[in-house]
Structure formats: structure tokens, C-alpha cells
């Protein structure tokens, strides 16, 4: 059996962790904000370094899976070929990142969001049932709580906690996330909630008689002051609608534009646009949209149109 000393140590550890849970359950800043900040800066710094080392590996995942079938050929590769391959993968990785940054800049330019670029350095494990990631920008870069996080495809989530040089981002697919959404090209608004599955969101229409159909795009409605969500950001595409018009619970399933399993370069919106960009940020604006198709430099007619519609004040 256990010695007396072992039993004492065990009881101390059990009591300590239970106390921590109870203290943290009380919410608010609590006694853990400084501990979190300390671990955040230490672990964040190391994770930033580690992410640079592993990024060719995580980026090469897709390349790898396509190569598995050709194992016979791979065996024939000489050491030089392997070296060339790894150089190619890291070059492809660099190009992919450059493209992602490009797309992000395009979204930021069209919608006139002021963004700070960052990179995802760590992801919470799936068995926590939370969809949260850590990024390598923090309060020193000007980040604050509840800022919108985007990439070149659209909305990713919002900043939950900020540390010195890292921040926690909660993704839109997290079950505790809910975003005010609007059907592009119409005034139908609703709430987009995460389901915990990476490729589906739930869009609850506020107006039970509202018109929504498969293929419609959903953009953010925008919160007051652009926090936590800046207006006009693409969220996803409606793939399924349950319930008929007039029914109390009309819920649409929305497939997010972003692939949350392959996040790398992201942008944090530090300043939302002065005017709601409406639907101009959508990748290929549907024909139903009254505004003209987005151009790299918005024409004056589009400016007038966006200025004519009052920006929603609350989300």
C-alpha cells in the first residue's frame, strides 16, 4: 500500500486541482489571469519557435497523403531526391503562406478593414471540445479582447484573451460562439452559432418568414463599434434549410468559407471600416446582390451605394 507521505502528497494535489476548478468557475479575471499571462508568454514564445520548425510538416500533410499510394516509386528515390522534395515542400509552404497573406490583404483592402497579420502557433486538442487556437500576436502588437479575426476566405473568430505576444482566438465553429449574420443581398438577419463540427454552422433566422435558400452567402451583420465582429465579413454558404417559411424555428445549415483545420496566416481587425462594406467582400458576389461586383479599387458609384445604406448599429 501507499506510504503516509505518498497519501499526503496525493491529497494535496487533489485538493489543489479541485480548488483551482472552483476558483476558475467563479469567472471574471480571477486569480489565474497572471498565471495564464505568465504561461502564455513563456509557452507562447516557445510555441512560436516550434511552429516555425513544424510548419513544413503540418503544411506537408496534404502533399504526403497524395504520395502514399506511390510508395514503390518513393522507395526508389535517392537521398538527393528526398532533399529536393523537402526543399520543394518548404518552397510550396512559403508560396502557400504568401498566397494566404495576399488573400488576406485583398479582403482587408476591399472591405477597408485595418488588420494586423498573425500566424496560428498552437491549436487546442479536439478532446477539449473547444475550438480555440493561439496566435503569435498580442497586446504588444495592439491586440485587444473581442477583436475580429479573419483570413483570406472570411471570418475565423474573435480574440478571447490577450497576452503579451500571444492571444487566444475562439473560432466560429466553437459551440459557444455566436455571430450576428445577414443573408447577402437581403436584409434577413439571424444568429450564426457554432456546432462543434468543423464544416457546419447553424443559422437561426430572426424573422420566421424570412427568405433563405441553399447557395445564399451569409456575411457578418456587425456589432457596435465593430466588436466582437466587424460588419460585412463572409461567414459561409447556406447548404440546407430546415422548416418552412412561417415556422417558429427556421434553421439553416451554413458551411463556413474558412477551413478551420488548416489555419495558418490570419488577420486581426484592429479597426473596422467606417462604413459597412455590405456584400462587397464576398469572393464571388452572387447575381442577386444589388451592389456592383467588387473591384480592387472601389468605384465611386459603389461608395455612394454603401454610403446610402445606414450601417447597422448593433449585432
Amino acid at each position, binding site marked *: 500500500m501507499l506510504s503516509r507521505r*505518498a497519501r499526503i502528497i496525493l491529497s494535496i*494535489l487533489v485538493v489543489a486541482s*479541485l480548488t483551482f476548478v472552483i476558483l*476558475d468557475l467563479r469567472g471574471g479575471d480571477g486569480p489565474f489571469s497572471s498565471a495564464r499571462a505568465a*504561461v*502564455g508568454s513563456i509557452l507562447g514564445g516557445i510555441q512560436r519557435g516550434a511552429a516555425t520548425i513544424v510548419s513544413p510538416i503540418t503544411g506537408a500533410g496534404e502533399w504526403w497523403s497524395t504520395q502514399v499510394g506511390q510508395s514503390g516509386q518513393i522507395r526508389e528515390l535517392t537521398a538527393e531526391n528526398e532533399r529536393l522534395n523537402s526543399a520543394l515542400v518548404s518552397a510550396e509552404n512559403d508560396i502557400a503562406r504568401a498566397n494566404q497573406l495576399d488573400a488576406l490583404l485583398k479582403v482587408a483592402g476591399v472591405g477597408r478593414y485595418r488588420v494586423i497579420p498573425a500566424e496560428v502557433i498552437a491549436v*487546442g*486538442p479536439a478532446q*477539449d471540445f473547444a475550438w480555440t487556437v493561439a496566435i503569435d500576436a498580442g497586446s504588444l502588437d495592439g491586440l485587444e479582447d473581442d477583436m475580429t479575426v479573419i483570413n483570406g476566405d472570411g471570418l475565423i473568430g474573435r480574440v478571447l484573451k490577450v497576452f503579451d505576444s500571444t492571444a487566444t482566438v*475562439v473560432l466560429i465553429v466553437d459551440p459557444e460562439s455566436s455571430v450576428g449574420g445577414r443573408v447577402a443581398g437581403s436584409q434577413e438577419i439571424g444568429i450564426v452559432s457554432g456546432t462543434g463540427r468543423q464544416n457546419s454552422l447553424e443559422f437561426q433566422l430572426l424573422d420566421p418568414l424570412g427568405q433563405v435558400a441553399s447557395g445564399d452567402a451569409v456575411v457578418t451583420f456587425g456589432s457596435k463599434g465593430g466588436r466582437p465582429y466587424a460588419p460585412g465579413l463572409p461567414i459561409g454558404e447556406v447548404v440546407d434549410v430546415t422548416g418552412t417559411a412561417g415556422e417558429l424555428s427556421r434553421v439553416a445549415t451554413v458551411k463556413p468559407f474558412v477551413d478551420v483545420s488548416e489555419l495558418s496566416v490570419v488577420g486581426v481587425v484592429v479597426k473596422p471600416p467606417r462604413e459597412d462594406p455590405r456584400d462587397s467582400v464576398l469572393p464571388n458576389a452572387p447575381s442577386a446582390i444589388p451592389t456592383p461586383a467588387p473591384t480592387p479599387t472601389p468605384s465611386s458609384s459603389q461608395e455612394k451605394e454603401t454610403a446610402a445604406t445606414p450601417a447597422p448599429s448593433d449585432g
Partner: protein
Amino acid sequence: MAIREGLFIGTCIFLAVLIELTLLSRLGIPGATPDIVVVIVVAIAFATGPLQGATAGFAAGILLDLSPSSDTLVGVNAIIYLIIGFAAGFWLDPRDRRLPVMIGIAALSTAAAAFGTAIVDTVLGGERVNWAEVPWITLSAALYGALLSVLIIPLIARLARPLLTEMSVS
């Protein structure tokens, strides 16, 4: 607990947390994230004993809870991993240290960690757990845990051997 043993456990836990959060959780593997942290905790418990396993589990859980990539309550992972580390070390019969037995216990432990998180989170009033997904997460966690432990249990046993002989001499 000797200082060198503490350093060894601390280094293993730190590396495991780092690998899990920066590499394994980003690979986009279906189901659960391969839980290298639980496997290391269990391997430490096998190599050094239940008390060390419990301490390692507590430390690993606190580190995971405080990490900037997660949003769990501080202490939830700590209590789950603490129990797992203790149980794994306590359960293993010292006379029966065959690898398949240890792999089986490690697989059960990773499953218990995933299932335990779901239960604790729900009991504490969290709304994140989707119970339809829990069986699949638990099963995949056990599978990945078994695969990881094939490598990690012998590795930790090997690395811990000098510590143990030193302890028995002193």
C-alpha cells in the same frame, strides 16, 4: 522525490504539451487529437510509480489548462490526468510488465481522459460537449493512444532507467 527525477518528469511533460499543441493538434487527423500527454503521463507512472504518475498528470493538466491555445477551466485537465497517472501506476502489476498489457492500459487511459473531459465539462455546466460526438472522440483517442504508446512507453522506460538505479543505490 529526487530533484533529478523531478527535472526528468518536468522536461518530458513540457515537451509532450508542446508537441501536442503545436504539431499533433494541427495535423487535421480525424476524431480526437493524438493524446501524447496522457501517454507520457502513463509511461512515467509505469516507469517510476503511481505517485510520480499522479504528480506528472497534475503538472501536465495545469500546463494544458493555462496554455494560450485552450479555454478550459484551470484544474479540469489537472484532476483528470492526476487520477489517470495514479491509476495507471497503481494498476500495473510490477511482476507483469509485458508491453501489450501496458499498451492496453495506455489506450484505456487516453479513452478515459477524453470521456472524463466530456463528463466534467458537462457537470460543470459547460455547453460545448456534443454527446453525439463523444463515442467517436473516445474511440479514436484510444486508438491513437495505443499507437503512440508502442513507441513512447519503451522510450520513457529506457530514459528513466538511470534515474531508478541511482535511486536504489542511494
